[in-house]
């Protein structure tokens, strides 16, 4: 028998405590009141009458409790005999099986499953094992089981997924299993193709000390060949009032050898439209332009596919072509304004397809309430506010979510009684002679200027302003840009659901030269897009992404759906209820292909379609040294094969392991507790007897 903390036995000196308790005279209860204890020194009680042990049984009870308590703290264990031999050969084995889509390549998945079966079949009867299937996430089978059949069944039923390799989540899961294990030996078997792209997520994961990591690579020495469709772009144009979209596909070759005459085919709504042949250099890419296709009012699904290779998963790319979004803008000028006043603005808005801008012009006097029908943004360009019914209509337009841009100019005015829309009250124009003024402050965190925050993305401050209207900022307004003398250049104000901007100078070249700068076009586009609350549609998502349909009002509305009761149909045909359970409204898209979202109660002819593609980082089949990865997890490696030293013989255990497994201290504490209970009963009874005798 041994003790982990024998120094606790020094505490045996406390045995004197119960002995003293038995010998010390008990203090009298009555107290003598004395004027002052100034002269009285403290003297311990000393009684000759009680200086003998009167109750040996109670003394022995107390001494035994103290001795056993110290024994428990000393953490005893048996180092020999049957207790020490219990489960001395048992192992905790975690089999990590990579099921990312790259495992489809060249028969890797079959080899991986064979390796997993070998490991399971090689387990001893006392060993416990867990199978973890992982790609970008990790899925755990029955934990720490000795049931070989269930483990083999799990491996047999496993399939590759659409996820990319990420070792981190699986390693974390294995780490948790090891931490909770009571078995003396820990072993992780990692079966994977060891792609370099997945290693980064495992940084920082460390298995418990003494864990053996056995990496089993399923790659071969053959050179890697892989062609994949890396993505698509849409080029939109309008022809005869119809929108036409040209699909531009980008295809990459990850192999060491060039590929020639590879076919790429475009399919729209499941029907092949065009096939293009191209050549690809080694470790290079090419762009393929398909002929334009006409798009209707509803989104259509499309696919670009290459010839099949040894990794077919990344040979296809799905997407949804939505009809081009158009932002409708009404530019209102003053009565005396000519066509050149809004020339730059109209020309700038005439360029662009994502979104396209539908620009109409009017004057203040000719402006009518019905002109606001289907408009998203109104620009008051160097003009005063409309009056009468038109003014009321403009106010209502903004309050209901419309955007208003007020551009200052010579004829700008905002008399008392005009709609309360401006972010402040502006004054007479100010001239800046010489070089003119520049923009001294710009809030680059604002969506309008966010585009210019990155280096070499356009410098708005190069524009010179020779005249502008100073404005006194109102309480609810915020300044987004200021001139170098501190006067506001661009202000924003929220009016209920709508937004109002005031631009203190002109948007042509009369008062400044901004219209002649390259930044003019993106600036005007962002200004109008922000006022129209425009958000681009998403043509595809990556597998594993979660979409919150509750926040996709626009998408659902376009498809004629409400979020009340929705169901999604996966590419494999599974029905996924979206409006049930705690994840109501969320759709997790794990499969590659096109998901369709329907109303659960009625069948919809035109469902909401969502294209899902695999993570193309997985297409890079470059590998990392398996032993390097294993050593980063523990620093100890047994390469290639399962630990051959495991021969079934009894192992020598550390004292800590024996003590932890046997847990004798726990039983000792229970005995101590019972002794103290007995002591309480006995001492109370003795006290009562003594009182009665007195």
């Amino acid at each position, binding site marked *: 028998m041994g003790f982990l903390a024998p120094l606790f036995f020094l505490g045996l000196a406390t045995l004197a405590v119960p002995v003293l308790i038995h010998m010390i005279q008990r203090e*009298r209860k009555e107290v003598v009141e*004395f*004027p*002052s*204890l100034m002269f009285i020194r403290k*003297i311990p009680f000393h009684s000759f009458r009680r200086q003998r042990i009167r109750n040996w049984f109670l003394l022995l009870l107390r001494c035994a409790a103290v001795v056993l308590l110290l024994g428990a703290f000393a953490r005893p264990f048996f180092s020999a005999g049957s207790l020490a031999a219990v489960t001395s050969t048992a192992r905790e084995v975690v089999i990590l099986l990579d099921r990312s889509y790259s495992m489809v390549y060249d028969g890797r998945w079959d080899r991986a499953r064979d390796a997993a079966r070998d490991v399971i079949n090689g387990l001893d009867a006392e060993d416990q094992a867990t199978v973890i299937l992982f790609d970008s996430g990790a899925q755990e089978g029955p934990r720490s089981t000795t049931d070989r059949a269930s483990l083999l069944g799990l491996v047999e039923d496993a399939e590759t997924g659409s996820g990319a390799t990420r070792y981190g989540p699986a390693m974390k899961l294995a780490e948790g299993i090891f931490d909770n294990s009571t078995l003396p030996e820990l072993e992780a078997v990692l079966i994977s193709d060891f792609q370099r792209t997945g290693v980064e997520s495992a940084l920082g994961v460390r298995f418990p000390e003494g864990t053996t990591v056995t990496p089993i690579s399923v790659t071969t020495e053959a050179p890697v060949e892989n062609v994949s469709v890396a993505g698509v772009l849409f080029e939109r144009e309008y022809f005869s009032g119809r929108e036409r979209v040209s699909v531009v596909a980008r295809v990459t070759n990850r192999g060491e050898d060039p590929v020639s005459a590879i076919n790429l085919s475009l399919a729209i709504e499941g029907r092949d439209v065009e096939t293009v042949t191209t050549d690809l250099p080694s470790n290079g890419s090419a762009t393929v332009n398909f002929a334009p296709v006409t798009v209707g009012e509803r989104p259509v699904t499309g696919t670009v596919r290459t010839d099949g290779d040894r990794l077919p998963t990344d040979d296809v790319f799905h997407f949804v072509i939505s009809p081009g979004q158009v932002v409708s803008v009404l530019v209102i000028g003053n009565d005396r304004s000519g066509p050149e006043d809004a020339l730059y603005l109209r020309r700038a808005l005439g360029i662009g397809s994502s979104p396209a801008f539908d620009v109409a012009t009017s004057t203040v006097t000719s402006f009518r309430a019905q002109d606001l029908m289907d408009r998203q943004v109104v620009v008051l360009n160097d003009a005063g506010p409309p009056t009468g019914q038109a003014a009321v209509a403009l106010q209502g337009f903004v309050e209901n979510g419309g955007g208003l841009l007020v551009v200052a100019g010579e004829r700008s005015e905002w008399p008392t009684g005009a709609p309360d829309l401006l972010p402040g009250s502006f004054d007479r124009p100010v001239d800046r002679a010489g070089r003119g003024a520049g923009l001294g402050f710009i809030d680059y965190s604002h969506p309008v200027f966010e585009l210019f925050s990155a280096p070499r993305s356009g410098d708005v401050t190069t524009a010179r302003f020779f005249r502008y209207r100073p404005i006194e900022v109102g309480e609810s307004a915020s300044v987004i840009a200021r001139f170098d003398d501190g006067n506001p250049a661009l202000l924003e104000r929220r009016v209920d659901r709508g937004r109002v901007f005031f631009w203190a100078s002109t948007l042509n070249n009369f008062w400044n030269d901004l219209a002649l700068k390259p930044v003019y076009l993106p600036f005007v586009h962002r200004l109008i897009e922000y006022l129209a609350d425009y958000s681009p549609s998403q043509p595809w998502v990556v597998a594993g992404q979660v979409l919150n349909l509750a926040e996709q009002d626009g998408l659902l509305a376009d498809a004629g759906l409400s979020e009340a009761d929705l169901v999604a149909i996966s590419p494999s045909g599974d029905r996924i209820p979206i409006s049930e359970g705690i994840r109501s409204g969320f759709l997790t898209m794990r499969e590659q292909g096109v998901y369709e979202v329907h109303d659960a109660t009625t069948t919809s002819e035109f469902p909401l379609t969502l294209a899902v593609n695999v993570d193309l980082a997985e297409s890079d089949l470059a590998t990392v040294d398996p032993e390097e990865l294993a050593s980063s997890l523990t620093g100890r490696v047994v390469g290639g094969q399962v630990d051959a030293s495991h021969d079934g013989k009894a192992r020598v255990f550390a004292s800590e392991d024996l003590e932890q497994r046997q847990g004798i201290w726990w039983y000792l504490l229970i005995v101590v507790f019972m002794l103290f209970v007995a002591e309480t009963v006995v001492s109370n009874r003795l006290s009562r007897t003594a009182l009665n005798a007195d």
Partner: protein
Amino acid sequence: METEQTVAGARFVDPKVLARIGSLDLLARTVVDGFINGLHKAPYLGVSADFAEHRGYMPGDDIRFIDWRVFARTDRFYVKRFEADTNTNFSVMFDVSRSMNFGSQVLTKLDYGRYLAACLTYFCTRQRDRVGLVTFDADIVTRVPPSAKHLNVILHELDRIEAGQPGSLERPFFRATEFFKRRGIIVVISDFYEDPKKVVDFLKPLSYGGNDLIVFQVLDPAEIDFPYDDPTSFQDLETGRKMPVVPEKFRDQYRELIQEHIAALSKLCAENRIDYALFNTATPIDHALFKFLAMREKLSRVR
């Protein structure tokens, strides 16, 4: 009454008997009647038969006090001055801290001090002195300013006082210096559970104004003899602190310490021209008074 006839000025009234008298007025009369008037002198010059000194005549002096004999000898005017033997201020400073509430006999120290103060006050009133009272514990508790008409007020105050708070001499004595600006006699009654040096340091400022300072230390016989036998816990009346004590082993040491304390206090008082007297609450009050007044009479002749 019988003792009054047999022993002039001292009747040795037993404190147990005094304890049965409810009225302090009657008690004081019982104790004091029969004492000799004029045993102490006032610190001021006034009208009496005892010549004190000569002083040069100044315009405005009563010509009746011119000493013509001196004029005849020196051809200069001198007036005679006499000691005033009455109309002095007599104040009692009475410790009413919680420790004074101890008594192993019939009377507590507080009661004994109360009787003592009543007797002295009555005694002084009979001499037409102005009498006052100050009670204190850790601070001044009550104050009756000296006046010839305040006997009843003082007796009433003495009758109703109760010991309550823990005591300390420093603050009340410091504050009391403001009360005694006119010279007079101050009697301090306390058990003086403080370091003797500190006690004297606190007392000295009272005598700076020319006051005659008299210190009465009142102790119970149990405090002097420590007659306890059984081991038990002793609790300090003032702090509430408890201590386990075996008196049998400690008695001699305690007696030695208390005697040293008394001796030190007595010696330091004498060195600082402060009259000191120890009163054992088992001793008859009039006996103690007689003994003390006799001592002061002797001392006044020496001074």
